[in-house]
């Protein structure tokens, strides 16, 4: 992004900055006490600059930004202190009507979930035109024309038609583009982007971020990027502000924060991160515990209960934000910044190797999947249902997982990876194909036999909030499994189980809602490992968790695998996590495996253009690396699996396809590529007529 800061030219009046926030406090009056969502935060952003506000959920990062737009309802919110200066004009003191005139004109915002952020009952074009007409004296027709132009500008094909469609007719990425078009309709000076890509696939995320950068460069917009994703920040921010429990704990330039963090929390976050670009994954060093309840923020430094450097001094006064070096704009609020600096320099331990007598390659397969197919019929009709088509969610997948190892299945949402997992477990009845678990054919089992066999194969779900029955206590949840699968529950069973997954035994009689996300996921894991299964499907087990918690759970999973010799099928879309945990990786696209290889081979030497695009789209939390990386930005969205493209299914979005001669292109169109051995290795297979290596991981 534009790195030139122009604040020198700005600001008559009191502020030198385009937008400045001073000592902002936002409190909420709740039944549980005063929630200090934002507790004295100051920051600024200048034209053409990108400021990233980073923090885990509940850190107050969104609230502070939304206050600028008057989007925090009061009551229940109160604003005990704070000023917001836009080009020197104080926003919060203005009459509501004046504030409103700035909203959407000088400051615009894009939100996390473009599906819910667009009004479902109005046409996309209308919604953009409305934004134009609210702030510009322009006719109805002219505004509509402008809306079409804006849609074209954000790269929406066929904008004239698209303008007349409704949000639900747009894909996720297109919706976010439409949101951006709307936000930029009046050429705002400041754009607040609140988790703009969290709900999107990584390839789409790359598209959107590329678009934002382009537009920012054209218009010299200041961007405030609110996110929890440190990779994204490393790739796109100029300056970074880290928030914890409603306060700023550290701020500085991109390089300063990543290369030389001075606050224990920042350091902790970085140590929790899995990195896709490290050949030999390091051991994760999670931050212990949970983020605090904002109604009961600990005394002193809010982070001290989770901080390994914490001393008595941390429990006293709230540390002030101080410069890391005299005069430096890199500031932190940590009493132990020196120790943090030392800790950060120290090389990290490697991740534990799955200890094994025999190498993974030579072990017998625990799971053997052959030509698995799962089609969902599309039915219509009032009384008599007719099948009018089928969604080919999984279309011939074969894989094999050696005992005690982990195979990861990656791909964008809708590629069929979760369906594979469910079909393997026969949670969805497979359409055809066979599944053998430890030599036993699962697909042919009768229901009663299958039910018993389930003790050997288990699953951990993605959403720890949704996968536990809210009306049952943890004890009931765990005991149910013993009841159903015929195990003895003694007095010590449940406490032991809880201890194994790192929960206190006295949590047994609590209900799921009394736990945090990470704790719930531990309960989910406890349920899965009870009765000693041999094979566990991990269906995106950490993707709903905050970074610091992710690392805790990943470590736990690794420990359990070592202790019990578990075999994992790990479903994920986050390639950094995959690189960390897998032995072998399979990449899926539209129901089929396009590439399968041992972990390092896949990341270091990807052969399929899709794998390459996927890896290149993942930002790496290291600005130095990010600066030199080239990103392959795929066009368009995943096609409808009910009507997949002929030949190679990926060809419609394939970057390589575009470079091919017409004859070669025809081959892609007509001939589905088989999964063939790549680079002569028996362990690396790829399904592409024109497979070839490309460096995408590092610059």
């Amino acid at each position, binding site marked *: 992004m534009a790195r030139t800061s122009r604040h020198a030219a700005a600001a008559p009046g009191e502020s030198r900055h385009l937008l400045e926030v001073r000592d902002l406090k936002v409190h909420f009056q709740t039944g549980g006490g005063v929630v200090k969502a934002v507790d004295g935060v100051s920051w600024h952003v200048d034209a053409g600059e990108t400021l990233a506000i980073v923090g885990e959920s509940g850190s107050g990062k969104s609230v502070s930004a939304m206050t600028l*737009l008057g*989007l925090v309802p009061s009551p229940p919110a109160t604003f005990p202190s704070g000023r917001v200066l836009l080009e020197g004009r104080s926003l919060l003191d203005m009459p509501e009507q004046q504030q409103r005139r700035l909203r959407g004109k000088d400051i615009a*915002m894009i939100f996390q979930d473009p599906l819910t952020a667009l009004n479902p009952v109005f046409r996309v074009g209308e919604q953009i035109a409305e934004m134009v007409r*609210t702030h510009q004296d322009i006719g109805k027709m002219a505004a509509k024309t402008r809306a079409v132009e804006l849609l074209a500008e954000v790269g929406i094909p066929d904008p004239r038609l698209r303008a007349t469609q409704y949000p*639900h007719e747009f894909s996720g990425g297109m919706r976010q583009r439409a949101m951006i078009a709307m936000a930029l309709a009046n050429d705002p000076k400041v754009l607040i982007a609140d988790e703009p890509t969290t709900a999107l696939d990584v390839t789409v995320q790359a598209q959107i971020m590329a678009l934002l950068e382009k537009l920012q460069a054209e218009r010299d917009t200041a961007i405030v990027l609110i996110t929890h994703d440190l990779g994204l920040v490393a790739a796109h921010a100029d300056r970074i502000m880290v928030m914890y429990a409603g306060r700023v704990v550290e701020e500085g330039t991109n390089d300063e924060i990543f290369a030389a963090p001075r606050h224990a929390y920042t350091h902790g976050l970085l140590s929790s991160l899995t990195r896709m670009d490290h050949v030999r994954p390091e051991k994760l060093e999670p931050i212990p515990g949970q983020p605090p309840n904002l109604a009961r923020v600990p005394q002193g430094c809010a982070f001290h209960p989770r901080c390994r450097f914490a001393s008595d001094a941390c429990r006293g006064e709230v540390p002030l934000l101080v410069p890391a070096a005299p005069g430096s704009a890199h500031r932190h609020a940590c009493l132990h910044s020196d120790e943090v600096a030392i800790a950060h320099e120290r090389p990290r331990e490697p991740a534990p190797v799955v200890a094994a007598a025999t190498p993974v390659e030579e072990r017998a397969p625990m799971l053997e999947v052959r030509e698995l197919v799962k089609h969902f019929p599309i039915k219509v009709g*009032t009384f008599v249902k007719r099948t009018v088509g089928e969604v080919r969610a999984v279309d011939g997948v074969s894989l094999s997982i050696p005992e005690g190892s982990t195979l990861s299945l990656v791909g964008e949402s809708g590629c069929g990876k979760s369906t594979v997992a469910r079909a393997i477990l026969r949670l969805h009845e497979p359409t055809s194909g066979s599944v053998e678990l430890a030599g036993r054919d699962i697909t042919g089992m009768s229901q009663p036999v299958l039910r018993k066999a389930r003790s050997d194969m288990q699953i951990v779900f993605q959403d720890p909030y949704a996968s536990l029955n809210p009306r049952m206590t943890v004890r009931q949840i765990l005991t149910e499994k013993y009841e159903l699968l015929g195990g003895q529950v003694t007095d010590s069973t449940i406490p032991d189980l809880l201890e194994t997954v790192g929960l206190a035994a006295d949590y047994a009689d609590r209900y799921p809602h009394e736990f945090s996300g990470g704790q719930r996921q531990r309960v989910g894991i406890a349920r899965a490992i009870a009765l000693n299964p041999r094979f566990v499907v991990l269906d995106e087990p950490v993707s709903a968790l905050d970074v610091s918690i992710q690392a805790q759970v990943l470590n736990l999973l690794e420990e359990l695998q070592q202790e019990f010799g578990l075999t994992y099928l790990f479903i994920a879309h986050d390639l950094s996590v995959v690189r960390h945990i897998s032995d072998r990786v399979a990449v899926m696209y539209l129901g089929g495996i396009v590439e399968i290889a041992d972990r390092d081979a896949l990341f270091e030497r990807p052969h399929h253009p899709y794998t390459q695009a996927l890896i290149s789209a993942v930002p790496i939390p290291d600005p130095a690396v990010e600066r030199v990386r080239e990103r392959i930005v795929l066009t368009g969205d995943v096609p409808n699996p009910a009507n997949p493209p002929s030949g190679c299914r990926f060809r419609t979005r394939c970057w390589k396809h575009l470079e091919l001669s017409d004859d070669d292109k025809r081959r892609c169109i007509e001939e589905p590529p088989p999964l063939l051995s790549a680079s002569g290795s028996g362990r690396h297979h790829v399904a592409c007529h024109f497979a070839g290596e490309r460096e995408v991981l590092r610059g």
Partner: protein
Amino acid sequence: MARFIARRLVQAVLVILAATFLIFLATFALGDPFASSGEKAVPPDIAEANREKFGLDKPLPVQYLLYVGNMLRGDFGIDFDQHRPVSQLLEAAVPNTVRLAIVAIIIDVLIGVIAGVIAAVKRYSFWDVLVTVIATLAIGIPVFVIGVVLVANVSGWGPFPSVPRSFTVQVPWYQEVLLPAFTLAIIDAAFIARLMRGSMLEVLRADYIRTARAKGLSERRVIGKHAMRNSMIPVVTYVGVSLGVLFGGAIITETIFQYNGVGYLLSRAIVNSNAPIIIAVVVFSVVAYVLISMIVDILYAFLDPRIRLG
């Protein structure tokens, strides 16, 4: 869209057929509904004509077909008391009921939506509590209490014509319809106000409302355009059901106000055990309900584009 309408139409026809079959079973198969009984014995020729029309000597399936055929032609036989074709009675009553239903719905949507919006927007305020309590109370007061109290205290006053009044006193239909419509509207308005409040509160929490505010729209526009259209969706469903029920005749209200609609016709028929009229009105109510709810479903699809592509 066309397919959606077609499918909805097929559904409606199926439901009507099934419902009329139930009515048919209850009235015909379980005995001769035209059998002479009681004081005003049905004249044998009338009974005979009815029997012949409905083919009571024929096997049950044939009877049902005849019955449906007659219904389709709007032929419901001849009533017991006046020996008039029931279809004529219906024809006279239906326009009045339709007027009443439409005016009532307009009144209750106006009152209900405005009250609901105020309650939702001024949440926890005095107005919110007032609307909530009045709406809840209104639901709890039986319509006949409201009706008789209005007849006793309001009719004959201001624009409201006397109840009863000499039939020669000409009253424009909109005056005649006013009080009964208002009576009907009170309870529905209360339901709509509660529904509107809840749905508006839900919508106001939606992300797109935040977006609308972030656009710099005035609060009026945020509520009036963005929140309104979305929160009206459940209200439309309710209004559809309510309209469907009202089209079938408001038996108590129409009777209390001596309003010559389908409900009043039915209430007289019930008092007199006038079977042909009862059957006809019930069939009419069912058909009206099903058709209205079908139309509302289709309208609903226009209001909510998400379900338009069926």
